[in-house]
């Protein structure tokens, strides 16, 4: 089968790599796990370098190639390999990545002497800090070029993942690093090699493409600028959500009525309109297959949030220089003029859907990759819901941030920077693995050994995706602190808790009550009041509770207030007294705490609940009231 892949992992386990080996273990074992699920007949081999020991065929045949160990020979993936990759040995020597590459190549060629039988792939993970040995014949460059040419002849692809930055403990020797960089670039020039530099564990985790389904074209044919001017393109999916495909246990849908005796029914109001497939086929919309240009427009006319689906990519038909040139000219002109193209697409023959989308240029910065376009689906008129929202400028002044707050926010936006100039950008989607998938595959492996195994916790490395980076937070402590100072704690606990209290039918104990309610500072006017008859009860309440001459008067005051609240609710017509009653209730609650009479308040609440029909509405009112 042409789709089969033979992959040799070349892993640097030398001393300078020890800190990242745990991540490499996870990464490689997940790769093999996915192969176990999706490509069970792929072969994988594992070569370690930087080990104390030496074990490979080339040493036996030719000598040399020291400190390179073939951990697993090329074979069909199996559970044993997953386990071996989960506990890689730590090496003690500086590894020579070129030796490892040659050993890996040798394995592939011996297994598959003829080109094109399978896809051959090497995957090198190293920090490239150790110099490679000088060769006997010619310079290092010549040596690398020879090997690269050989790789190209045998149709072998290589992926190099170079660990650097904070992940390397010791400071790299500059000359070695730049020499290695130059040498690796020879590979990328001579063969189809992808070099990736990663500076943090998360992106190391995401650097290796573990998915390996051969992508299918969505469309092959003409991009029609007009009926006369056409460009040959291939369209692929650029992004597509990767999900495990779980099946339901024991399910057998019980079909009594066979499918040819069923007919689709669509609702039209309360009525069901039957539409047979034959009738539907006869009248349904049948657009002609094709990708047609509607026109160009300013990129500002298509906002980013209109993009509807996963993304396609338009590449020129392979080996078609004309198409490559035409796309390149268009892409570059559009980029310069800040334009996008609007297309109408019917990807397949017989498809009943038309897609309107936007083409944005993707200018390639790599020598061996032609310019291309990204394609995003846009919504139709039916898909857009035009809801109206209040303008921020029209909101009351109390809700507007002041100058100081604006500055604090601007500082935060500026300083909490995930894409610092000249440094590696954090959380690039291209290098951020899906923590859910990682956890799922880990769980799968655990369960394969023990069906009752519990779901493992989130991987520590990947937690960095879900929470702010503590280093970044620490670095910007002053900015964050001033932001926090400017926007005082914002939850209104008193109000929220009161609501909860009422909703829970005030079953909470006295202690709860005391803890939940923030006491009000006692700055109330001392007035002698005997009974509540004032038209503005809340103030009277407050005044009353100020006069705590005797314990008796407090109890009496509370009683009076209770009666007043009942009265208010009872006399309320369509809820017009409710706001007042709520105010009274809140005031009473505060007073009860100040006066250490929580018991009384709770008691009252309980009674309030059991009050008559009108209260039903009052309760609803309380629940719906959110701001005081």
């Amino acid at each position, binding site marked *: 089968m042409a789709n089969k892949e033979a992959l040799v992992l070349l892993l640097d386990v030398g001393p300078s790599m020890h800190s990242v080996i745990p991540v490499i273990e996870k990464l490689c074992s997940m790769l093999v796990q996915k192969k176990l699920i999706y490509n069970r007949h792929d072969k994988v081999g594992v070569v370690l370098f930087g080990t104390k020991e030496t074990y490979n065929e080339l040493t036996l045949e030719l000598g040399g190639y020291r400190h390179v160990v073939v951990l697993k020979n090329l074979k069909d993936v199996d559970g044993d390999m997953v386990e071996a990759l989960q506990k890689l040995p730590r090496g003690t020597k500086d590894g020579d990545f070129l030796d490892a590459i040659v050993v890996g190549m040798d394995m592939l060629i011996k297994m598959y002497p003829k080109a094109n039988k399978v896809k051959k792939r090497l995957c090198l993970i190293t920090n490239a800090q150790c110099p490679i040995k000088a060769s006997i014949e010619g310079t290092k460059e010549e040596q690398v070029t020879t090997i690269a040419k050989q790789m190209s002849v045998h149709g072998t692809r290589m992926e190099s993942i170079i660990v650097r930055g904070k992940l390397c403990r010791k400071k790299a020797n500059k000359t070695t690093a730049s020499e290695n960089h130059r040498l690796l670039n020879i590979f990328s020039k001579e063969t189809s090699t992808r070099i990736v530099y990663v500076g943090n564990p998360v992106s190391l985790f995401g650097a290796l493409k573990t998915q390996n389904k051969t992508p299918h074209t969505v469309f092959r044919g003409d991009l029609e600028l007009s009926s006369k001017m056409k460009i040959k393109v291939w369209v692929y999916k650029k992004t597509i959500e990767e999900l495990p495909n779980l099946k339901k246990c024991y399910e057998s849908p019980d079909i009594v009525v066979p499918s040819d005796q069923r007919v689709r029914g669509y609702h039209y109001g309360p009525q069901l309109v039957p539409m047979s497939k034959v009738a539907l086929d006869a009248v349904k919309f049948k657009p002609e297959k094709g990708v047609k*240009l509607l026109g160009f427009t300013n990129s500002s006319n298509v906002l980013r949030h209109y993009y509807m689906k996963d993304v396609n990519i338009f590449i020129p038909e392979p080996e078609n220089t004309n198409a490559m040139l035409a796309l390149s000219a268009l892409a570059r002109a559009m980029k310069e003029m800040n334009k996008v193209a609007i297309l109408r697409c019917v990807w397949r023959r017989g498809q009943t859907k038309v897609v309107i989308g936007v083409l944005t240029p993707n200018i390639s910065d790599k020598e061996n990759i032609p310019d291309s376009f990204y394609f995003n689906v846009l919504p139709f008129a039916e898909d857009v819901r035009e809801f109206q929202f209040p303008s921020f400028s029209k909101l009351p002044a109390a809700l507007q941030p002041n100058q100081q707050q604006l500055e604090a926010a601007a500082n935060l936006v500026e300083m909490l920077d995930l894409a610092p100039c000249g440094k590696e950008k954090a959380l690039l989607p291209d290098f951020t693995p899906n923590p859910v998938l990682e956890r799922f595959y880990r769980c799968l492996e655990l369960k394969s050994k023990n069906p009752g195994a519990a779901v493992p916790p989130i991987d520590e490395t990947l937690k960095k995706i879900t929470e702010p980076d503590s280093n970044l937070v620490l670095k910007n402590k002053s900015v964050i602190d001033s932001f926090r100072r400017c926007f005082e704690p914002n939850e209104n606990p008193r109000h929220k808790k009161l609501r909860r209290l009422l909703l829970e039918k005030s079953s909470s104990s006295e202690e709860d009550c005391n803890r939940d309610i923030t006491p009000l500072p006692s700055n109330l006017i001392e007035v002698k009041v005997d009974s509540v008859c004032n038209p503005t009860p809340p103030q009277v309440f407050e005044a009353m509770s100020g006069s705590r001459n005797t314990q008796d008067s407090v109890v009496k005051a509370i009683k009076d207030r209770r009666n007043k609240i009942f009265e208010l609710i009872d006399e309320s017509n369509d809820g017009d007294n409710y706001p007042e009653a709520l105010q009274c209730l809140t005031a009473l609650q505060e007073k009860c705490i100040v006066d250490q009479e929580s018991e009384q308040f709770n008691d009252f609440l309980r009674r309030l609940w059991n009050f008559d029909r009108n209260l039903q509405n009052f309760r609803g009112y309380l629940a719906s009231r959110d701001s005081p």
Partner: protein
Amino acid sequence: MDFEHESDDPFRDDEDDPDAHLSLEKESTKEYVVYLVDASPKMFTSTCPASADDQKEESHFHIALSCISQSLKNQIINRSYDELAICFFNTREKRNLQELSGVFVFNVPERDYLDRPTARLIKEFDRIEESFAKDIGSQHGIVPGTRENSLYNAIWVAQALLRKGSAKTVDKRVLLFTNEDDPFGCIKGAIKSDMKRMTLQRAKDAQDLGISIELLPLSHPSDPFNVSQLYAELIGLEEDELADFMPSAGNKLEDMKDQLRKRMFKKRIVKKLKFIIVDGISIELNSYALIRPTVPGAITWLDSVTNQPLKSERTFICADTGALVEESTKRFHPYKNQNIVFSTKELSEIKRFSTGHLHLLGFKPLSCLKDYYNLKPSTFLYPSDEAMDGSICIFIALHRSMIQLKRFAVAFYGGSSRPQLVALIAQDEVIQSGGQIEPPGMHMIYLPYSDDIRLVEERHSEKVGMVTRASNDQIKKAADVIKRIDLKDFSICQFANPGLQRHYAVLQALALEEDEIPEIKDETLPDEEGLARPGVVKALEEFKTSVYGENYDEECEANAKPSEASKKRKAQAEVATKECENYDWSELADTGKLKDLTVVELKYYLTAHNLPVSGKKEALVSRILTHMKK
């Protein structure tokens, strides 16, 4: 129609589209609408141009009716659980529960005054103009000398119709169509102010009961509608809203329909989110689905003979014993030659990260947000002070800074179905001719993971060989083409989905028993006329010559290199045709021996006759028999 249907894959996101759960929450999000249409003689005599290029004038009454008809046809498809009543005022006849004069409630049999729309209602409403003068009649309801007040009556009737249902679970609205800005103009003195006061009180009473009254004024360019005469007060318009209320060109039919459509949509909060900005500071956001693909609606399977709905039932049979078991919620995934079983609880545990919160991780310049970072429609976020004071203030501060500094926020969204990284883009409010085109707030873009991104370009790099880039001259020629074919006022709302419109048209024609399916114009086709303009043709021609060379022949290119796959297919077909001749198919079919052949042999026939080769053996046999007409 081959619109995809939501799979019930546990890893798929299904929580965020409110319409997906419409059947569940239809109780709480229902809407009752009373269309209140002025039928006074002025509605019939005043006209306005139907559309810009059409000189024909249409009466205001006709415009109002076609708007309502259009919205009924949309409503019956999109939100058929919502209920409505259609009510005319200033009529000669009266029909309403209160026996009030000058008000006529339109209805059809098998339907309450306020009820769900039915096919019959739509059908008869479409024909109402023919019989209006005879059955209902137009007549001024407010005339000097009497104390009759048809506007007052109309609001009263509408309010009574909307008595049903609690204001908490149902959104109640009155949509009022009129072209009379001063209904009490003909009355003088104290009686006038008295009637005005009563009418306003009536409207206020209705509003106090949770009914919103919305005005759709019709006017003529020479006779603008003055909202401040009466209606500003009646519908409770604030001073500063007055200027924005009347759209500049609110007299055209299209605008009117548009306006109605906008007002028919009700905002639904999808979710309330807690957005943790820094340790100790979080705000509350409401999320809304502003853009979601519209699909033709759920299918109910019917028996093809009786047209009765079929009941779908699932039986779970134990794989080992064959016994019926309780519904199983377990799922499995094959791995290492065994099926690993997961319970629903375990699956949701795997997906649980930080329950439902949005956690700010940092900011990046907008240029970092690549065009291929997209998976599904975005979600709109707007702050709310409901549970946390200060949410709006903090949101506005961040919003403004992000726009000024051209940055977006990266956050982790711990949703229960697919926890993922999101980009938050601040969007400034955009207002065009009085209407809000883009609301202020943030759009949440769901970002892909590395697992979701494919390296397509790099896969093909080896096959390409030498890569050539366009020269400056070629780029210049391309730029000329771009300048020529420019869509200046492109807006995403300009195209209706032709597939969907066709489906609705078919459905409507079947339901209303119309003979003809109305032709749907496919608005998505390129403007052939525009492309044929000499300037455009010339620019394209020059571009073509510049990139393809002088003597480029398309046919030649197309035929020059048949692809590997097509070569293979051709070869296979040849082999099959040859092999096919070795069998006497007719004989085999007659004697029922087709089933004794192998699948490979059956496929010879199918391939040779250009038939699909998919399916089980029985399917292949029956396909062959069908093809041989046996």
